[in-house]
């Protein structure tokens, strides 16, 4: 094998061959590559959107729950110290209560709509730094720290606001309406709806929020919490375990502390499915790209049958000829990758950042990770290797005389 000669032949073929063919080939490779990245990125984007909704509206990054045999987290001092850990943005303590909510539209005891929902309490100042529910109001306003008989509810509780579970809702309540809540300890209170929110997480939309002060007066407790959710710095994402260790050191030794990942049961199974689909589509895309290269090289070899015979006749080794075609294939793949990456990063990605797709799970943009790009690059180059090698190997096996006169 003479690598120099292979390279020389590959180079002259590419540079002096038909320009139209070259442009078409590069175009096809670029599209094949964009296709590989695009599909994985859309699925990556969907998974990320699902996760983001869970993080933004439900769990934030870390969730602290009471120890196994406890109802509440009682270490107020520890809860307060969490915020002082560097890298942690804020934490928000909630009381959680399973309630029965009812709405009597005409105040006459007839046609009362009711259902069971979770009511959580929030310290407004803390909460707005940790979740984004306060930014998701579609009607009315979020709570203020001093609100007592006010409540904000999710659109799935309210009904009539485009939720998916309207048949389970209160059948259409609006800001200003009054609803009755029976807490798990039997206490009943009436609240005026201050706001209705709609996130892209239906679990969050099935919750209602009152202030901590209000909840403590209902439950008759003080300075406790049913859960504390903790937000860490964006650039620390993925480091949750490290922060859990630090949180434990504040004194929350026996509490049940989990990352959002561990809690997203449904979403993680959904994201596993999406990952699976994207791997399958990626594999198909790679095979298609490989077959495309195969066809390109195959056609080129059919056109160069005679020339291959001549090269063999003047004493060029088959392996040298094969390598020159494989080099061409890899060249097409690499150029496809370069153009493809440029298109993805400078055209498609900005486009989808500006125009995200509205999926039920959230606003989906493309999630283009270095990993996806690397895997696609390797896949395409391997596809080019194989797609270039097979036709070249077969083409050079023909006898010299057959190729020159056949």
């Amino acid at each position, binding site marked *: 094998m*003479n690598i*120099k*000669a292979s390279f*020389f032949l590959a180079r*002259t*073929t590419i*540079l*002096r*061959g038909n320009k139209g063919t070259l442009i078409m080939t590069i175009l096809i490779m670029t599209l094949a590559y964009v296709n590989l990245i695009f599909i994985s990125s859309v699925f990556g984007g969907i998974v990320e959107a699902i996760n983001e909704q869970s993080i933004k509206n439900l769990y934030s990054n870390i969730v602290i729950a009471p120890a196994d045999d406890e109802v509440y987290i009682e270490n107020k001092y520890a809860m307060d110290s969490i915020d002082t850990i560097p890298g942690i943005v804020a934490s928000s303590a909630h009381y959680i209560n399973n309630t029965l909510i009812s709405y009597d539209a005409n105040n006459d005891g007839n046609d009362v709509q009711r259902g069971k929902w979770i009511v959580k309490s929030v310290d407004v100042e803390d909460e707005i730094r940790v979740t984004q529910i306060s930014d998701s109001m579609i009607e009315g306003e979020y709570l203020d720290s001093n609100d007592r008989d006010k409540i904000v509810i999710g659109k799935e509780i309210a009904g009539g606001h485009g939720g998916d579970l309207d048949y389970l809702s209160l059948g259409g309540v609006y800001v200003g309406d009054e609803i009755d809540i029976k807490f798990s300890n039997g206490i009943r209170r009436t609240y005026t709806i201050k706001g209705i929110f709609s996130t892209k997480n239906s679990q969050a939309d099935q919750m209602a929020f009152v202030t901590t002060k209000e909840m403590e007066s209902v439950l008759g407790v003080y300075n406790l919490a049913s859960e504390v959710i903790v937000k860490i710095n964006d650039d620390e994402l993925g480091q949750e375990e490290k922060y859990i260790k630090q949180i434990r050191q504040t004194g929350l030794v026996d509490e049940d502390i989990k990352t959002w990942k561990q809690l997203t049961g449904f979403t993680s199974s959904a994201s596993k499915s999406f990952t699976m689909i994207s791997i399958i589509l990626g594999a198909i895309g790679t095979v298609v790209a490989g077959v495309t290269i195969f066809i390109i090289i195959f056609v080129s070899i059919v056109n160069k049958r*005679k*020339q291959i015979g*001549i*090269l*063999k*006749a*003047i*004493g*060029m*080794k*088959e392996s*040298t000829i094969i390598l020159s075609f494989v080099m061409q294939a890899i060249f097409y793949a690499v150029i496809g990758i370069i153009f493809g990456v440029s298109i993805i990063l400078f055209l498609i990605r900005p486009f989808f950042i500006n125009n995200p797709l509205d999926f039920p799970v959230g606003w989906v943009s493309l999630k283009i990770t270095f990993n996806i790009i690397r895997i696609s690059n390797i896949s395409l180059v391997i596809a080019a290797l194989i797609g270039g090698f097979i036709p070249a190997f077969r083409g050079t096996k023909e*006898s*010299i*005389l057959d190729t*020159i006169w056949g």
Partner: protein
Amino acid sequence: MIIEVKKLKKTYEGRVPTHALKEVSFGVKEGEFVALMGRSGSGKSTLLHQLGLLDAPTSGEIIIDGTNVIDFTEKQKTEFRLKKLGYVFQAYALLPELSALESVYLPLMLTGVSKAEYIKTATEMLEKVGLGERIHHLPKEMSGGEQQRVAIARALVNKPAILFADEPTANLDSESSETILKLFKKLNKDIGQTIIMVTHEPDDKKHVNRVIWLKDGVIRPEGT
């Protein structure tokens, strides 16, 4: 003898087997310029293919420069073609993407000589065949005769023991043909190049040292 052929047979197996060469034996001395002549279908090309290691004979022996090449593997044949044999086809045997110079230095490149050296040697070779002014031309920018001279330069650039040419002038006008034949004669004279050329032209006889006549796959004296 630079080439010795003993009882060489070539049968093309097919629905009807063709005995293209039937026990051909002859020898060519170093520095000879030999013409292979005979009617169409007499086996001239077949014989040249066997000698040029482009095909595998059915039986017999070919000894080139003291080496029996019959039992060579494909790899050995390739190597031998590169270093010991030059082959000029009838026509259209240049790669369209390569300039004259590149076509000629490709075989040198394959032997692993340095870039400076292969450019120098190839340029000299092109000058020898009278194409010093055309070294950067692509095949489509040259006449048939010029292309054929590039092919000859390419065949000669590795200083082969034998130059084979299968009707190298068949596609050329008489003037170009004359140039090619004069070139062969000059090469034969000046550097003692052994040449075996298949030709149809009775006129070519006057340029060569000897004519080998083929008839129905066997060597016959002229006229029989």
